[in-house]
């Protein structure tokens, strides 16, 4: 059944599309649809919060007009391996980018930044083991496979639990080193995810596979730039509560704004929500509700992040090797971002901790003071002076904010991923959890859905189409 | 050393001044004493005034016409003058000289001598040909000169050259065919082979005078200028060819000799004569160029006297004829009723030579004064008409 099935007086009106969720998924979807559609479309974005952007947020401190990353800290640059449409979009929007590099892993106060450090701190056997592991990892997943992971073209990756693979390493120090290196990116525990997913998070540190970058001035500029260029109607503080079938195949979307209930009908509804928010919507149609329920069940593997960001009264000194981030063995493996590292004119320093997995969940309920104290305690020795320089602290909790990839889990084909109910072809889903829980992943998801929608719209508007 | 936009080449001025001196001496002595019989003093007669350097002035003048034209065009191009303007100037000068040549023949000689195709008409026609030659590669110009020299004997044979010459003088009928043949082959200075002189002069100028079109290489600035060695070899080869031709002349076929008994002759201009004079003039000019031209002026006094003479060569040509021929006609007419009664028998050679020297001295001083006093001359008349 076509998405758009309209004849008669509504045939000449632009198709109405509702995008539920104003995060990166919703914005990317609207962006793609507006560019791919061959005819005008009327898009409405319904966002429950008071801002667009979702997990991409770059707020300012109150003590000083300094921005920091509260959500997605970096973007992934796949251009060494293949097309990177997200990077191309960033460049086309004219947003300046800054590369991010970081090679240091701090274990028990010892810094290991390269193989020479590994030999000096851990011994020749550990150095050899690291080299062997790296060779094995690169042999297990080529840059092309890495690039295709998460897509329909992905080769079935190793579904063995990551913890089992790491346990096979002879040297405990090497295990610890690798766990520390990848833990914050996993957002889950090695026991709860696959070796394939773990390999991806290890190989993302290899410049031959991927590089990291951020947008100068805050990653939120990406979503802002997109939002500025959309023709879509944006309704903030609009919490969608129910989706009900309406006449002629349309869907009635009910939401409330400031307590006031509203409802509109749309030809297509795209749900660009994280799993918890998706689960909060009621679907009047039993078939649709069941399909959404299965969709949620299949993809609900919540993983957690917690961000602690500190504003310092002076630029950060003593960063070994001028790294933009370090891996600490504190919190089970956390990433310490030196957010002010590439701002030579800044008068303040910004340090950001990214906790993942169980640590994020455990510390999620801790008081802020306790979190900040623990973070400062975890600073390696060269950064110890920063402990007395804190002006302001901010904590952002992303509990269940991403999806982990559990062992034995297999992704669905792309069509089924994005359209949970074959009987409801005009209900589509977009999300980073459908891919790799990254901004690139949600970009791919949005592009997939938008292409589908655009093709259906073209078909519906064709004079020979049976749907008209 | 900066490129010379308007400076004259001292070597050309000196060579032209020498040619003027030769011309004046030869014409004075020949025309006034050519057949003066005074066995006690000197042998008279054209071939008996053995010390008279006949046959070198005309080749020098016509050769230098080509060389000077190359320099002149280069100067105009560096000044930014367009090709059309240069062409106009060339054609006008050529036609002026042709007309002046006709007028000269009528006024100095006789009206019936108007189409005797003297040197002025040849130089004028030569300029018109050079206007086309400057569009050709130098190699083609040289090729044309070689052809002109090579076919001249055959043309003389076909035209019956000897039938137009009586006792050493050119005599023709006032018919279109005779006039045209005289211009091409049988006159005093016909196109074939005399056109070769200005053509070779034009083509060889860049090699003879390195500063013709471009400044010298930096590393050579300040050192004496040097013509290319190739020119020297070619000139020597031409002289050698002339010598060989002279040696084997009796054994050569008539299409080469044109039934001319002597290998070295000016009338008609034999192949050996043309090759020998071109080669010799080239070598002399090259030597003078090395000796006199360059950053540091050399032989300033000599150049100071030679330059005004060279600048007024045309005026001197006309004037020296008037100075020695008109009195000859007048005295002959007055004494015998026949203007040509005293032709070549007016005085002994020493007297005519003395007159020639006196004339040269007077005209040299006159020319220096004429420049400063801006007196009208044939050259100023030409510039006034042609520019």
């Amino acid at each position, binding site marked *: 059944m076509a998405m758009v099935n309209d004849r008669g007086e509504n045939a000449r009106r632009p198709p109405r599309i509702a995008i539920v969720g104003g995060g990166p998924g919703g914005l990317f979807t609207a962006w793609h649809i507006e560019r791919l559609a061959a005819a005008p479309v009327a898009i409405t974005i319904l966002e429950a919060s008071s801002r667009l952007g979702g997990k991409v947020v770059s707020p300012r401190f109150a003590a000083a007009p300094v921005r920091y990353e509260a959500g997605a800290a970096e973007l992934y640059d796949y251009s060494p391996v293949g097309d990177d449409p997200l990077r191309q979009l960033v460049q086309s929007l004219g947003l300046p980018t800054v590369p991010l590099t970081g090679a240091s892993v701090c274990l028990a106060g010892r810094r290991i930044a390269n193989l020479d450090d590994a030999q000096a701190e851990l011994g020749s056997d550990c150095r050899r083991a690291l080299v062997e592991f*790296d060779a094995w990892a690169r042999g297990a997943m080529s840059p092309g496979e890495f690039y295709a992971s998460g897509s329909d073209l992905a080769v079935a990756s190793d579904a063995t639990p990551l913890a089992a693979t790491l346990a096979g390493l002879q040297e405990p120090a090497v295990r610890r080193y690798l766990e520390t290196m990848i833990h914050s990116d996993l957002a889950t525990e090695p026991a709860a995810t696959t070796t394939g997913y773990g390999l991806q998070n290890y190989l993302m540190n290899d410049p031959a596979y991927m590089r990291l970058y951020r947008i100068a001035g805050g990653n939120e500029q990406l979503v802002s730039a997109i939002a500025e260029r959309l023709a879509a109607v944006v309704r903030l503080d609009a919490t969608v509560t129910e989706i009900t079938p309406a006449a002629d195949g349309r869907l009635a979307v009910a939401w409330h704004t400031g307590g006031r209930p509203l409802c509109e009908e749309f030809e297509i509804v795209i749900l660009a929500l994280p799993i918890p928010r998706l689960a909060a919507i009621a679907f009047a149609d039993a078939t649709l509700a069941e399909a959404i329920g299965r969709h949620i069940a299949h993809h609900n593997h919540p993983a957690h992040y917690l961000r602690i960001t500190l504003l310092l009264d002076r630029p950060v000194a003593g960063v070994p090797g001028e790294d933009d981030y370090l891996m600490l063995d504190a919190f089970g493996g956390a990433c310490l971002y030196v957010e002010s590292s590439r701002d030579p004119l800044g008068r303040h320093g910004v340090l950001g901790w990214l906790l993942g997995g169980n640590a994020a969940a455990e510390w999620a309920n801790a008081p802020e003071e306790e979190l900040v104290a623990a973070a400062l305690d975890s600073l390696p020795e060269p950064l110890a002076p920063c402990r007395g320089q804190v002006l302001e602290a901010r904590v952002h909790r992303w509990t269940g904010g991403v999806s982990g990839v559990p062992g034995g889990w297999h992704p669905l084909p792309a069509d089924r991923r994005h359209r949970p109910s074959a009987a409801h072809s005009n209900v589509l889903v977009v999300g980073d959890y459908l891919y790799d829980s990254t901004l690139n992943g949600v970009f791919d998801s949005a592009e997939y859905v938008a292409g589908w929608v655009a093709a259906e719209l073209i078909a519906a508007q064709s004079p020979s189409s049976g749907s008209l | 050393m900066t490129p010379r936009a308007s400076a004259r080449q001292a070597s050309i001025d000196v060579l032209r001044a020498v040619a003027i001196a030769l011309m004046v001496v030869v014409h004075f002595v020949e025309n006034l004493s050519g057949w003066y019989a005074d066995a006690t003093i000197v042998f008279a007669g054209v071939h008996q005034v053995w010390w008279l350097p006949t046959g070198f002035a005309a080749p020098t003048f016509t050769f230098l016409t080509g060389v000077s034209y190359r320099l002149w065009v280069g100067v105009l191009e560096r000044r930014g003058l367009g090709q059309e303007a240069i062409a106009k100037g060339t054609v006008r000068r050529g036609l002026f000289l042709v007309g002046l040549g006709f007028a000269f023949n009528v006024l100095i000689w006789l009206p019936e001598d108007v189409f005797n195709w003297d040197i002025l008409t040849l130089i004028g026609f030569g300029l018109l040909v050079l206007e086309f030659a400057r569009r050709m590669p130098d190699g*083609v110009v040289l090729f044309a000169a070689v052809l002109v020299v090579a076919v001249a004997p055959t043309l003389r044979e076909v035209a019956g050259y000897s039938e137009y010459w009586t006792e050493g003088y050119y005599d023709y009928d006032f018919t279109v065919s005779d006039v045209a043949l005289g211009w091409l082959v049988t006159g005093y200075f016909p196109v074939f082979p005399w056109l070769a002189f200005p053509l070779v002069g034009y083509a060889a100028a860049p090699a003879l005078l390195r500063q013709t079109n471009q400044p010298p290489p930096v590393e050579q600035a300040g050192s004496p200028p040097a013509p290319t060695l190739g020119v020297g070899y070619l000139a020597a080869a031409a002289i050698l060819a002339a010598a060989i031709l002279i040696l084997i002349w009796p054994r050569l076929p008539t299409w080469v000799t044109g039934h001319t008994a002597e290998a070295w002759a000016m009338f008609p201009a034999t192949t050996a004569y043309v090759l020998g004079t071109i080669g010799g003039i080239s070598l002399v000019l090259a030597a003078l160029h090395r000796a006199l031209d360059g950053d540091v002026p050399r032989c300033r006094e000599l150049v100071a006297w030679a330059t005004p003479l060279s600048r007024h060569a045309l005026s001197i040509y006309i004037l020296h004829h008037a100075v020695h021929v008109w009195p000859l006609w007048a005295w002959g007419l007055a004494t015998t009723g026949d203007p040509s009664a005293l032709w070549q028998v007016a005085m002994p050679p020493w007297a005519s030579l003395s007159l020639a020297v006196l004339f040269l001295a007077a005209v040299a001083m006159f020319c220096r004064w004429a420049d400063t006093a801006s007196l009208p001359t044939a050259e100023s008349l030409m510039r006034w008409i042609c520019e």
Partner: protein
Amino acid sequence: MNANDRDQSDLKPGPAAAGGIPAGLPGTASLRRLPLSATAAIDLLAVAVEAAADTGGPPESVANIIREWTTTQSLDPAVGVSPAPIVVPLYGCLVAWSAGRAAVVGPGERLGQLEEAVADFATHEATLRDAEQRATALLDTIEADAGAAFEIDHASGDRRIELSARYREAVAVGRRLAIVAPAVHAAPVHPPTLASQLGERLRERARLVERHELAVGRADLAERVAEACGQRAADSSFARRQTGLEWAIVVLLVVQTALILVDLLARRGSS
């Protein structure tokens, strides 16, 4: 000479470089002249010192001396004015580099790797800088040659030797840039070593990639212009030969016409 051509003997103690070891450095400091190519060399100062516990790097006094020493103009007249030095703090070490001078400070067991990395980088940078300068010199002539690249006249034909030399120079510069390209565009090594990290930092800070691209662009432009000039000169030469042939035919026809004319006139005159 490229990095691979230098043998290990270059890194062994050699003759002292001019200027001497700056005062204030520990006794472990050594200074020597490291040849980079047949014409280029660099003064390499090595100081073995343990990292300070508080800063994680060399003592500030040593670091200041090193910075000042590399800021001082190189004594090598071939180097000319030295660009601003690049200072790279790197995991307990400190490396400072400017054209003609370089200093490595760190634990003794790390100095060898750092010197090797600096020598490699300096070699490639010197090669690139030489090619850059030559490419820039070629750029100055492009405007003068542009006319000859469009059309060429007789006077320009005499410039064939000069234009030929320019083309060969452009190709030579392009060749040097092609030789140094793999080193300039070398992909980061993973897992990294201290030497590879230093090399990447130095290449990034010296903007070798951007400079290489700019130099390649200039060399390409100069080569295209010189090639066009050569093509025009060849075309002109060919056209002149063709023109010469045509004029020679014209001359022959004129002479033939003169021959026929003389024959006609002679017959007419005699009839």
